[in-house]
């Protein structure tokens, strides 16, 4: 059974584009961003719209390959392709873009993108053990603040920032409560629907409406939990490179073969939601602390990801792990070997891109994992 409220989330991304256009025509500024490292609270505290930018579809990749190497992660090619073809309405409406030096491919691509849009690229220290990293990241957030003032002419007050931090914390807590409903067996919401809800968060034009729909959805899911007793297939955690709306093929294959995608550890899942921003501290320092500690493979070493994954495996009663590596993503690819050793659950890595050409191969890997779980 599928919750009826999902209909709202089905059309959320498309409808938000229209709303943002209307707001923009009324004079509102729009700032786009790509990754969970972006301190969106800062953007919103300025009064601008913060909006996620499209990066997870195959369609614009051919255009991107005119400038970028073919042998590059599809996420990077897709982001750039959307930017140069005007096919992502959000990129089109954005007055500026906030980005960050995650992996090498992304940071070099942003150099090309800077010719198209005003950009502020925050410098993430690669080392997770560098003593001055928090100070450094805080300075970068201040730099972003100055950029927003200079480029968009918008001021950020400390009070406003605190208010946004609070709002986002509330939203994170709520979404984690939603995800936690999938601790039941069978899970009341499918992995692809859960992705849709979490992914939609970065595109929504109206926070209150979004929050109230999430609450409606949770109520419905409670009912579904109360009214189903049949135990369904293996409980799978998905991790690895981000999986966005438009390239859910691995999630779909898991579900088609009878598995339950319980949650994602990835950026498109709970990676950015598990930690809150400290509301009692200086807001810039608090933001720096939270965003610095995101367990992304771009930082080294990234043992927090192993700890988080193990914790989720336990809490959510996970039977097996599917680690998605986008082709040419070296950081997640290498880390897969370490992750496999670090977790104690049956594990398979799937290397893929955004095309549909390998769906059968993916199914073979997944059904083999299921059979390994069954024993």
């Amino acid at each position, binding site marked *: 059974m599928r919750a009826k409220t999902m209909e709202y989330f089905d059309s959320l991304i498309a409808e938000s584009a229209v709303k943002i256009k209307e707001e923009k025509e009324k004079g509102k500024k729009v700032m786009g961003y790509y990754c969970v490292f972006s301190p969106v609270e800062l953007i919103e505290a300025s009064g601008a719209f913060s909006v996620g930018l499209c990066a997870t579809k195959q369609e614009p990749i051919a255009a991107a390959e005119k400038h970028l190497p073919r042998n590059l992660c599809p996420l990077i090619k897709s982001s750039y392709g959307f930017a140069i073809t005007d096919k992502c309405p959000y990129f089109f409406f954005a007055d500026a873009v906030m980005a960050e030096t995650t992996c090498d491919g992304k940071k070099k691509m942003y150099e090309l993108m800077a010719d198209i849009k005003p950009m502020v690229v925050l410098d993430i220290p690669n080392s997770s053990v560098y003593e001055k990293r928090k100070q450094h990241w805080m300075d970068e957030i201040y730099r972003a603040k100055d950029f927003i003032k200079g480029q968009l002419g918008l001021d950020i007050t400390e009070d406003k920032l605190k208010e946004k931090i609070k709002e986002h914390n509330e939203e994170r807590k709520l979404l984690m409560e939603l995800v936690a409903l999938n601790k039941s067996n069978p899970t009341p919401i499918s992995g692809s629907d859960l992705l849709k809800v979490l992914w939609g968060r970065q595109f929504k034009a109206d926070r209150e409406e979004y929050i109230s729909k999430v609450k409606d959805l949770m109520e419905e899911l409670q009912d579904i939990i109360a009214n189903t007793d049949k135990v369904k297939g293996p409980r799978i955690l998905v991790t690895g490179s981000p999986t966005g709306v438009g390239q859910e093929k691995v999630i779909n294959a898991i579900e088609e073969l009878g598995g339950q995608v319980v949650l994602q550890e990835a950026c498109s899942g709970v990676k950015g939601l598990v930690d809150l921003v400290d509301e009692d501290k200086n807001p810039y320092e608090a933001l720096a602390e939270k965003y610095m500690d995101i367990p992304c493979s771009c930082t080294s070493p990234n043992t927090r990801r192993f700890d988080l994954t193990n914790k989720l495996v336990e809490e959510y009663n996970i039977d097996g792990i599917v680690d998605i590596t986008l082709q040419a993503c070296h950081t997640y690819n290498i880390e897969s070997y370490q992750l496999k050793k670090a977790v104690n659950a049956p594990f398979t890595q799937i290397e893929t891109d955004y095309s549909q050409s390998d769906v059968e191969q993916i199914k073979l890997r997944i059904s*083999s994992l299921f059979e390994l779980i069954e024993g």
Partner: protein
Amino acid sequence: MYTVGIDVGSAAIKIVAFDGNDYKYTIEPTGWSPKSKGAEVYSRFLSDNKISSGHIKKVVATGYGGRRLDFIDEYKSEITCHGRGCHVLDPSIKGVIDIGGQDSKAMLLNGSGKVLDFTLNDKCAAGTGRFLQVTVNALGLDMDQIDALANNSKPLEIDNMCAVFAETEVLNLIVQGAKQGDILAGLLKSIALRIGSLAGKVDIEGEVAFCGGVAQSKVLTQMVEQYCNLKINKLENPQITGALGAAVIGF
């Protein structure tokens, strides 16, 4: 009573009937339509062996085309089936290496033939049967000539990860006047090394079974032993391990 295992691969359909002790089998080319060819080979196999449908407990399918057959009771992945089939033919093996047309696989087995861990090649043709086919064609040769030519040759360095580029590399070597046998030996060596790294990923050591059509090459088998520190136990029927495994699992 029998259980039947049917493995519909991209090149051949393999069918095995297992009675708890012994087995009968057939191998036929897949052709254009795995689904109708599967049904046709199946009914012919039954009548040739005088097995009536009343004597069949269960039909278990595997392989890329297996899922599409409509007369089966169950589907199991090739990984599980090859693991079990190889174990039945030789219980002493610790792992299985399978070079298929589109996928190369390595599986680590426990003492009863269950798969403990597995890995497959990434989204690239290198190290697969397809890779060998393309490069052998570039030499203007046929697959069955490989061993005769590569035997006692000095493998040249061929290190492209990509089948398409490896083909170019082969053509360059021909232009430079390299010997066909040395080029072939180089190709086989590059496949052996790739197989070795797959096996290493799942910690396979010691005695392994080697299946898939390409495994029939003696030179490749020797190279896998030489370069990858594995001991290959020759199976009496390496092509049917998937179907046999499926039949045994169903029993």
